[in-house]
């Protein structure tokens, strides 16, 4: 490693050594920062779908991680067994995730519209258990490979390296964020969604079909989940059936960091979480990776409960 080479400099030239040492350390900080930023984009993608459902329905979908997992596994099946190209696989992932998302909406949310806030949490945990078990029955509990051409490729930018798959995730993540923003802010459907989020009784009196809006929200959120699953599969070149739970948890952390229901917040929160996790591994060691992320979350919740980009409300 570079450290070892620097340490074997002649002792007389201490100033020079320190200079190089600082430079090398700086180099690693920046490279870690880049990796964290890139990896954080997958967290952002996970969180955008999450935050959409919260934004429209004021409910948390704890099965969203499993929708993402379905996206990954549909992709794996299409690539490995049906030998499809990446674009068709991507569309397949979206469709698979949308189907599962609609099922979750139909059976876990629609009957519970007027229930207290704990009920949908439990019912989606039930859905999450079912989806995970069914997929574990089919694919086993081992890590399955997601073959893709980007596994070992990287791009050199100056002194720093960027993995191609992370770059794809970053670009597609930004594209999806803009598309979602346009959908919600500029279309008629988006206006109906916002009206429903504001007050669904009033919205239904204005002639908005609430069931259809909730369905559309789930279609869009699950499509984003499917895309996230596909990109997660590509960026790690693998998938496990247990990844749904991890994805749910990371998604929760991110949407709270960014502000519940805020889509730019989810994007920013994801990148922030990625950077914090990678830098804490580099500075503190891998054992403290989760602690750093949760400490950040805890402190932020106590100091600024609305999240980084959340709207201010009285009751948080």
């Amino acid at each position, binding site marked *: 490693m570079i450290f070892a080479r620097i340490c074997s400099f002649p002792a007389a030239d201490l100033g020079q050594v320190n200079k190089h040492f600082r430079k090398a350390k700086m180099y690693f900080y920046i490279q870690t920062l880049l990796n964290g930023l890139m990896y954080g984009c997958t967290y952002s993608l996970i969180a955008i779908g999450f935050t959409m459902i919260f934004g429209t329905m004021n409910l948390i979908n704890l099965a969203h991680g499993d929708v993402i997992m379905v996206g990954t596994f549909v992709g794996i099946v299409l690539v490995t067994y049906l030998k499809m190209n990446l674009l068709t696989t991507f569309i397949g992932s979206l469709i698979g995730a949308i189907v599962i998302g609609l099922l979750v909406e139909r*059976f876990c949310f629609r009957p519970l519209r007027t*229930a207290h806030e704990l*009920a949908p949490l*439990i019912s989606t945990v*039930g859905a999450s258990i079912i989806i995970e078990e069914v997929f574990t029955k089919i694919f086993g509990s081992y890590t399955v490979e997601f073959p893709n051409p980007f596994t070992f490729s990287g791009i050199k930018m100056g002194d720093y390296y960027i993995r191609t798959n992370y770059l794809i995730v970053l670009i597609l993540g930004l594209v999806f964020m803009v598309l979602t923003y346009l959908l919600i802010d500029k279309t008629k459907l988006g206006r109906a969604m916002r009206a429903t989020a504001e007050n669904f009784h009033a919205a239904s009196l204005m002639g908005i079909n609430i069931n259809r809006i909730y369905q559309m929200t789930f279609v869009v959120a699950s499509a984003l989940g499917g895309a996230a699953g596909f990109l997660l599969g590509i960026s790690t070149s693998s998938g496990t059936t247990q990844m749904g739970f991890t994805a749910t948890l990371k998604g929760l952390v991110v949407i*709270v960091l960014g502000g519940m229901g805020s889509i730019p917040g989810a994007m920013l929160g994801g990148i922030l979480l990625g950077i914090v996790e990678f830098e804490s591994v580099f500075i503190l060691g891998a*054992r403290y990776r989760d602690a750093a992320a*949760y400490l950040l979350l*805890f402190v932020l919740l106590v100091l600024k409960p609305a999240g980084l980009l959340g709207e201010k409300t009285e009751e948080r």
Partner: protein
Amino acid sequence: MGYWQTLITYSSFNIILALSVYIVLSTGQLSVAQAGFYCIGAYVSAMGTMLWGIPLIPAILLGGLLSSLTAIAMGIPVLRLKGIYLAIATLAFSEIVRVFFHNLKCGHFIKADITGKVADQWLGPDGAVGFSFITYNLDHGITPLEYFGLIILYVIILLVFFYLLEKSRMGYGFSAVRQGDAVASFLGLNITRIKIIAFSLGGFIAGVGGGLYSHYMTVIRPEQFDFSLSFLAIIFVAIGGTETFWGSVFGAVLLTFLPEWLRVLKDYRMIFYGLILIFMMVYRQQGLIDRDLLRVLRKYLGKRR
């Protein structure tokens, strides 16, 4: 006999966890940190008996006390939050606790057997490996049956406590806060104080439960106390019923026995478990046991309210 004793022991641990969630929930606050308090109780009491030489019951109480203090320390900053935000803050706190014990290493080596042929073993919390050889019961001649009695005794004490609490001034205060902060403050109640009391009691109940758990299992690992344990405890309460503590007790017992009854379904039982969770929430959101059912039961048993 051993089968039933084990199952009843496990249901007791689950009852303890469910009640610790219930007492916080009875002030309208959802805490996902109970696994963290359980973890503190388990580790501290085990360190008390094995490393610091404290007798069993004081050590378990020490664990409970420390959990309770931690709950207060956590409660003061996070109780400004509500609903899902509070849930996530407590979840974050619980994970911080778990990572702390994940990295904690203290204690000393012990000879694993008298002949010295087996390699030395580490006594004390050993990071991710956890705390092994919590052999206090074995060393001091406490039989499994006696220890079983201790666990049952604790559960009975808790049931009596909750029964009295429901009828007490404090219990009415709890349910007033649950109805709404505005109502409760209108009645002249100190809301923050009531919530903190509920948090500290929940921490104490879970901490003592953790101490009993670690001395029963003799081996604990930090991974056992992650958020899925907290979720499980919340599921017990939600399935059993959120309106009365009998609901939590019933939910904990039912969901401990359910996987055993579902054994006929072999590998598909987790799928049925999930289906039951969804059906329960769709058709009976208040949980299996609610106030109306209790009233009917009391009438049936010929008691007056």
